[in-house]
């Protein structure tokens, strides 16, 4: 036979999943909250989103060119990072700060550490914290045409009441993507249905947070436990963080038990920040902190292989 055959190691068939398809699913899951954010905050939000995503993709493309590596923008991971970052911005944020943030997220947090899959903390959150520290007043300016001033969490911190139905639907001040709990949940259900995330991380994060704040009597101020819990859950970046940021593959544990420990650590930290911290928001910091502990968590939770409990000597 003169024909040539392809020879390689087994297995010789593969599933149809690809990295790009996974990223695309995440983008689709973020669409409800993105569209809601644009309708809630207006055309400025749309422009900001486009600029941030473009800056993220451009940063990755430029970096790859500078270091003479193959372009990786086709795997859509830069688009996801850019979109997540944009959803963490207030709609009035100056465009140049958004570009600086996107470049920081991609170049410093992701590419300098080894590119896709090698980042040690969530790039979008890392950039958000960098901007919060460098441009505090711009990043905390939630005044816009539609809403004035304080976010629901700030109001609750000062002892006021907030309409939790508005918080669920999203007609409140806040960053572009975090206001509508319902839109985020729709996206999260889509991701769970597609098998991209499972409930271990968001579940343990949210549950341990709730247990913590109830234990420490946060609801005693307002007297209404249900309203308080819903308010705390829908306020700030908790929903977006629990389902889209904490679940980022590269920065969460690979081991099933590790995922739960990671979620609990982040949840307790968020409880501490919200109850006792000086800022009303702490979601980004809690997730970043937990990201740092991931290598240690993985080492603690090496799964017991099949059959090793029945080992005979």
């Amino acid at each position, binding site marked *: 036979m003169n024909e040539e055959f392809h020879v*390689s*190691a087994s297995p*010789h068939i*593969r599933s149809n999943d690809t990295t790009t398809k996974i990223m695309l699913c995440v983008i689709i899951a973020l669409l409800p909250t993105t569209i809601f954010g644009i309708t809630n905050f207006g055309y400025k939000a749309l422009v900001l989103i486009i600029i941030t995503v473009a800056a993220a993709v451009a940063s990755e493309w430029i970096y790859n060119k500078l270091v003479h590596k193959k372009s990786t923008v086709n795997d859509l991971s830069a688009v996801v990072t850019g979109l997540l970052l944009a959803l963490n911005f207030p709609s009035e944020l100056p465009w140049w700060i958004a570009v600086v943030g996107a470049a920081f997220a991609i170049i410093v947090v992701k590419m300098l550490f080894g*590119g896709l899959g090698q980042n040690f903390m969530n790039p979008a959150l890392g950039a958000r914290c960098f901007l919060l520290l460098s441009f505090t007043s711009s990043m905390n300016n939630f005044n816009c045409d539609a809403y004035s001033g304080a976010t629901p969490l700030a109001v609750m911190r000062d002892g006021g009441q907030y309409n939790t139905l508005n918080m669920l639907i999203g007609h409140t001040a806040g960053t572009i993507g975090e206001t509508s709990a319902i839109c985020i949940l729709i996206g999260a259900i889509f991701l769970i249905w597609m098998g991209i995330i499972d409930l271990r991380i968001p579940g343990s994060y949210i549950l341990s947070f709730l247990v913590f704040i109830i234990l420490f009597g946060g609801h005693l101020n307002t007297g209404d436990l249900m309203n308080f819990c819903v308010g705390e859950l829908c306020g700030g970046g908790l929903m977006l963080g629990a389902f889209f940021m904490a679940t980022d593959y590269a920065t969460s544990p690979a081991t099933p038990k590790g995922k739960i420990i990671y979620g609990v650590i982040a949840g307790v930290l968020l409880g501490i920040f919200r109850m006792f911290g000086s800022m009303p928001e702490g979601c980004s910091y809690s997730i970043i902190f937990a990201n740092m502990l991931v290598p240690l968590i993985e080492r603690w939770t090496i799964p017991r292989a099949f059959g*090793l409990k*029945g080992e005979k000597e």
Partner: protein
Amino acid sequence: MTLFTFRGGVHPYDGKDISKDKPTKEYCPKGDLVFPLSQHIGAPAKPVVQVGDRVLKGQLIAEADGFVSASIHASVSGTVKAIEPRLVATGDMVMSVIIENDGLYEAAEKNPDFNENMSGPADIIQKIKMAGIVGMGGAGFPTHVKLSPKEPKDIKYIIANCAECEPYITADYRRMVEEPEKLVEGMRIILSLFPNAIGIFGIENNKPEAIRKIKELVAHEEKMEVKVLRTKYPQGSERQLIYATTKKHVNSSMLPADAGCIVDNVDTIVAVCRAVKEGLPLTERIITVTGDAIADPQNFKVCIGTNLSELIEAAGGFVEKPEKIIAGGPMMGFALFDTNIPATKTTSALLCLTKKASSWQETSACINCGRCTQSCPSLLVPSKLSDFSAHNQTEQFLKWNGMECMECGSCSYVCPAKRDLAQSIKAKRRAILADRRKKQEGK
């Protein structure tokens, strides 16, 4: 009806419909037949014939060398043409006996000592040994050794591996549908060796016809039952099969016999029946010639030693240029660069895939998505193990239980970045095993 199963595993495209309903055809080889002296686990057999000898069908041409070894018999009558190294499916050159087929198929005389009624355990084991039966599911472990554990009284389960979990292969299925009585009889014979054992037929639920037939035959058997398994790869892996049918755990440092189980493939059990009842040595097996590149995919009853390229012609040749030709299944089989290799006792299929069905995609970075961890039947973390293998971190590899890997390939199958996880873990595991063997021999 509850379906028995195990944790992990994947669901590749089944591929069995194209070949499973066609009756098995007997195939008479045209060219020379090649008998590698090592087609089983253990020491290679020693040839007992010389170049120029005339041999008959069923005649012993190589005898077992030691306890863990198996004898080899001619599957046709003819003349010994040569004894020289020949290419086999794994790519190695193995010393083989080459027989020129005279087309007469003259059978050797039956062993005058053979008595169908001799049925004590020692007699049965002896008959199985004389017939050269090895595990025909792919591993090729000598069956007479497997059926001689240290404590026969401790064996509780004889499990017939009717799962055939690899996609595309339907050889065992056809055997179950066409000769179920021999399968049940073979099980009966094996059960007579183990007074405390019951027989379990573990069949996947994508084979309803086979389930029906075997259930009918064991309906009145006290010591046999059928357990229907959820169709999933790798259900046919020994450890997963034992777990699914008996809930017992077996790890890499144990033999199934340590858990009171013995697992045998369908074809092996049928061969046991023919050896014990009719004195026939192992000289043929069913091979599925299939894949989307083949014109008429079907099963053939093939004489051991037949050149596999003949089978491609017999199945109608190629309807499209194949991208890959695989000896075995798509998950664990060997890709061939030359189809002029012999069918051995452990060759279950010849799979010819076009570019569309097989896969080659560029590898990209691991994103730590965890799909490999979810699908690993040994409950390992393949992404980490593959990393340790690439960076030569033996201690970490052992700490994360890399030696428990059964090389099923589920991790590579499921990886969205198309990383060669199974390949790197296999390489590291075998390097460690080779090291250990060297140290033992050095002592």
